[in-house]
Structure formats: structure tokens, C-alpha cells
């Protein structure tokens, strides 16, 4: 008699999934493990130590690059989130209008064009116009490609929002501004937060575009890591990389928690 199986059940799927998780996480775990290697050769384990973290923290170049990364990510996120919120409000509450589809395509352009193409196109313009604002150039570039990332969760939230709430506010004598201030904005807040976190992570992690448009002195952490890797692999790279990974994981986890709670908030 053949063994009973539930409909649609495939054997070995679970172990494949666990194997896949190992594939996703083992490289990251190995990278982090080696960052605790006290020796100077990455591949040769010479015992546990935090000395490379100490060295990384004490490295003035890394400190400057990390500070640049934070400044760029913070400013770019703030600007991109405000711009994206305005655009998302028009797209979801502005009614039908001519050029709506074209505007949407335009906003998602940075998602479609390969990063390297965006990078050299921006390089050409910055070099051609002689625009040289130091970190400003990097910030402009980051705002540009962060807009769609901030836009997506904000628009999703607005689309999921019950429009009768806004009608209820108008019904209860709320002016357009009062409705926005007391009803739309508070309910939209988790979406804005999610959009801001995504664009912060994207900005913090960007490497190709920054590498192309950043002048001397505007190096960000990923660009600095890249130059370290090119010069030869030391456990110091692992230490800095681990810290950058940790920052991203924390932010994404926060994003995940925020978006998960929205189901509870609108129920």
C-alpha cells in the first residue's frame, strides 16, 4: 500500500528550505566569525579577539567614512521621505489626472535603471556642470534613488487606508487641513516611518553610485570597505563589515515590526 501523503505535499521540501537558509546565512555568519580572529590573516584562525574591532574603531578614516555615511543617510532620508509623502498623497488622493501614469513611471525610474548606469549618468552631469558640493553631491544622488523606496510603503499605506475615515472627518466639520493633520497623517505615520527606514537602509548600503559621484573626502563606509577589500583582506574589513551588517539588520527588523503592527492599528 502506498504511503499516505497530503495533497500537494512534496517530500524533501522542508530540508531544502533549511538548506536554503544555511546558504543565505552561513556566509554572513562566517564573515562575522572571522572578524573575531585575533590574527592578522583572515583565513588563518589564531584565536578569539576583539582587537580588530578596536582597530576599526580607532581608525580615523573609518570614523570619517562612518560619519559621512550617517550624515548622507539621515539628510537623504529626511528629504526623500518628505518628497515621497507628498507624491504618494497626490497619487492616492489626487483623483484621476493627466500624466498620472507617466509620473508613476518617473518615480519608479531609479528602481528600473541598473545602478551602474545611474551612477555614470550622474557622474557625467556632476563632472559636466562642475557641480561640486562635497557631501552635497552624494546627498543629491542618494535622495534621487531613495525616493521610490520611501514612496512604496507610504503609497501602500494610503491605498490600504479606509477613505471613509477622511469622509467621516469632513462630515464632523474637519477642514481639509484638519482632516490631514488629525486623521490622515496619524494613520499614515507607520507608512512614513517604514518608508524612512527603507530609504535609510538603502542609502547606508549604497556603494556603486556613491563610488562614482563621491569626491575625495566624501567617502562613505561602503566605499571605504571596497577600497580596503581591494588593498587586501584583513580581519579589520570583517569587523567593519559586521558592524554595517548589524546596522542594516536592526533597521530592517524595526521596519518589519512597524509594518506588521499596521494590521493591528487599522483593524
Amino acid at each position: 500500500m502506498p504511503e499516505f501523503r497530503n495533497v500537494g505535499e512534496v517530500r524533501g521540501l522542508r530540508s531544502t528550505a533549511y538548506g536554503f537558509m544555511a546558504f543565505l546565512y552561513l556566509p554572513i555568519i562566517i564573515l562575522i566569525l572571522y572578524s573575531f580572529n585575533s590574527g592578522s590573516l583572515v583565513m588563518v584562525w589564531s584565536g578569539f579577539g576583539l582587537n580588530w574591532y578596536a582597530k576599526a574603531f580607532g581608525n580615523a578614516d573609518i570614523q570619517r567614512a562612518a560619519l559621512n555615511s550617517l550624515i548622507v543617510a539621515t539628510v537623504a532620508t529626511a528629504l526623500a521621505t518628505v518628497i515621497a509623502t507628498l507624491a504618494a498623497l497626490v497619487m492616492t488622493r489626487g483623483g484621476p489626472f493627466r500624466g498620472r501614469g507617466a509620473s508613476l513611471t518617473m518615480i519608479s525610474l531609479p528602481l528600473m535603471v541598473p545602478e551602474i548606469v545611474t551612477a555614470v549618468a550622474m557622474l557625467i552631469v556632476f563632472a559636466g556642470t562642475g557641480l561640486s558640493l562635497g557631501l552635497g553631491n552624494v546627498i543629491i544622488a542618494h535622495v534621487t534613488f531613495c525616493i521610490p523606496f520611501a514612496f512604496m510603503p507610504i503609497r501602500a499605506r494610503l491605498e490600504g487606508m479606509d477613505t471613509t475615515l477622511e469622509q467621516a472627518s469632513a462630515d464632523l466639520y474637519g477642514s481639509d487641513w484638519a482632516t490631514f493633520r488629525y486623521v490622515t497623517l496619524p494613520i499614515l505615520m507607520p507608512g512614513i516611518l517604514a518608508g524612512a527606514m527603507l530609504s535609510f537602509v538603502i542609502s547606508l548600503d549604497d556603494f556603486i553610485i556613491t563610488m562614482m559621484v563621491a569626491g575625495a573626502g566624501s567617502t562613505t563606509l561602503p566605499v571605504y570597505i571596497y577600497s580596503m577589500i581591494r588593498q587586501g583582506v584583513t580581519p579589520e574589513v570583517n569587523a567593519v563589515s559586521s558592524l554595517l551588517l548589524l546596522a542594516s539588520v536592526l533597521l530592517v527588523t524595526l521596519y518589519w515590526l512597524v509594518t506588521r503592527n499596521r494590521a493591528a492599528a487599522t483593524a
Partner: protein
Amino acid sequence: MIASARTPALRRLLGLLPALVVIGLFMLVPVAIMALYSFLEANPFGGVVWRFSPEAYVQFLFERDLADNLVFQSGYLIIILRSLGLAVLATILCLIVGFPIAYFIARQPARLRNIWIYLITIPFWTNQLVRTFAWIIILGRNGTIELPFRWLGLLGADDTLGLMYSDFAIVIGLIYAFIPIMVLPIYASLEKLDFRLVEASADLYSSTFETFRRVIIPLAKPGIVAGSILVFIPCLGAFIQPDLLGGGKKLMLGSLVQFQFATARNWPFGAAVAMILLTFVVLCLLWYAQAARRAGAQSGALAHA
């Protein structure tokens, strides 16, 4: 409703303007200028000379010999073909691995599903450069994979398995970087799939294989198409993987663009390569939009991409 008709139009304009201006000025216009650059003459010291020249495109297939005659050379053509080949290979492998994973997650209870999806998204949002770097440690000389071979004495001190700096390493790197965006859309369409259809198929004497072939895969097709496009495009334009894992010798389109701008200083040629890359991407997106429209007539399932 009674407020003058200009007000909503004005509000719309004010709301959209910042986004459109920023993206237009720093994305659309630059790409247009880049297109223009690809038809200009190269300045040997970097930048361009403002004179029309198709030279950048001629360079793909021909080389000028000492007598200034055009001689066919296949080097760049091979890079284009390798880029397409590696991107297709990586996409197919992502699909083969990603589909069962997506199916597995879609069949988990709702609470576990969220956790699996979270675990799959995490690596995607973490730094690609760093994650690619991790593979240097794994594949490289004296790396994690070679370690046991050395201990067992199967590999001499000066020998190496030669895993690094190969097409193999590049494809692994590409799969590792982009497989989450294959799993997510497939999962999205499988999650929406009414599982009673699978039971109906079984009830009507289908084997599991037949059910997959005739019910599950056709219904998951929007997700499969979306995932494949989302993986293929960044693979084609990849820079980090060929650069770090291909050792800068196995060039792909993305790294060729970077090389022309950063090192060779032939901007028109770099712009031309970027234009070719962009052309492939636009073709992909057009094909996708058409597929989406066709599928949209049957269901709105493609919207999630």
C-alpha cells in the same frame, strides 16, 4: 467640490513637483546626456570632445590597426554575450531553487510564513558589497571550502581549487545577491492561490507532478515572470560580483562601464556600453509590461511587482 477647479490641480502640481524635479534633473536628464555622450569623441584625458562620432559603437566590433583600418575583434562582443549568458544562468538557477522555497513557505501556517519571509528579506536589505565579500572568504585561496581539503592533505600548500575568479564564482555571487527577489513575487502569487484548486486537481486523478504542471505553475506564472525579470535586470548590470569574484578579468557589462569611466577614461565608449545595457533592460521591461497586460486581462495578479 465648490472650490475653484484650479485648487486641486495646483495642489497636485505642488505635491508632485519635488519628486519629478529631483528624479528628472538627476536621473532622466543625466541618462539623456549619457546617451548624447555615447555619440561624441573621446578626450584622451577624460571627458569628451564635442564632435559627433559613431566611434564608440564601432568599437564594439572593430579595432583600428596601425594603418587605421577596421579589424574585427570579438572581445567586447564576448563580454556582452557572457553578461547575457551569466545573467540567464543565474536567473534560471534562482528560479529552480526559489520556486520550491516559495512553495514551501506558502504552505506554512500564517505565523510561520511571516517569519520565513522576514528571514529571506533580511539578507536582501543588507549590504551587497559585504555579502559578496563574504564569498571571497569562502571560495578564495585558503578559504572555508579549501580548508578541509588541506587538513586531509588532498590539497598541497601551493595548490588551490581555483574556485575564485571564475564564472562559477560570479554566478554564485549573483544567485546569492538576488535570489530573495525571486522568492518574494513567486511566494506572493502562490500565497494567493486557492489551495482547494490543488485538492480539486488531486480529486480529479492528477499526480502531484501533474498538479504542479497543470495547476500550480500556471497559476504562479505572474510571480515567476516578475521574479525572473527582477533578478535578470540587476544580474545583467552587475558590477560588484564580476569585480570582486571575477577578479576584474571576467568582465560583464556593468564592470565594463565602470572600467571605462574610472580607469580607461573613454567616456563615450563607457556611455555606449551603458546604453546597450539600458537597451536590454528597456526591452525586458517592455516585454514584461506586455506580458502583464495580457495576464491582467485574466487576473490582476501581476500588480505586486
